[in-house]
């Protein structure tokens, strides 16, 4: 689930998480620079090196 962070004090306290109520146009808030998405890409799994794959690629 996407997490949103408040940028503008017109929406709330900057830095706080923004939880949109039903009916709120989140895209409009993102476009207007009022909030930002806090999407962190999941880290890819690290492969341990083996004899067949010594570099762990």
């Amino acid at each position, binding site marked *: 689930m996407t997490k949103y962070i408040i940028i503008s004090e017109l929406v709330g306290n900057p830095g706080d998480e923004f939880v949109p109520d039903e*009916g709120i*146009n989140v895209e409009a808030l993102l476009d207007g620079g*009022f909030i930002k998405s806090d999407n962190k890409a999941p880290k890819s799994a690290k492969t341990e090196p083996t004899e067949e794959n010594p570099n762990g690629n």
Partner: protein
Amino acid sequence: MATSVYLSNPVFKVNAVALTGFCTAATLTQTNTAQDTSVFGNVARVYSSTLQDNECTATLYMTYGASEVYATLKALVGTQTTVVLQEGTTVGNKIWTVSNAYLETLPIMNAALGEIQSIDISFQGGTIVETAVV
């Protein structure tokens, strides 16, 4: 006895953005559309309530800065959003939330020489829910 309420500290929010600091006037009107249900034998028109047709209007100073009036409204034209009008911030003051309020038009510019630019916007339709500040 007549009473007056002075809206000294009202709150006006559009799509969760507080535009209170740009707003100089706001009106919320509840309308229940009347349907004529008069029949033979009636001596006066009889009306019944059908659909609500609410309207919320506001006068705002138009600003084009980042995260200000234009940035709030430009993406909402032609869509439904949530509008909140609040009598004040004191406990017990009424809050009216209009859900699915439709913004049909946005005056992008309303310039006149020597005047501070302001615009009138109107949200149509939607349902009104009344709560209070706790």
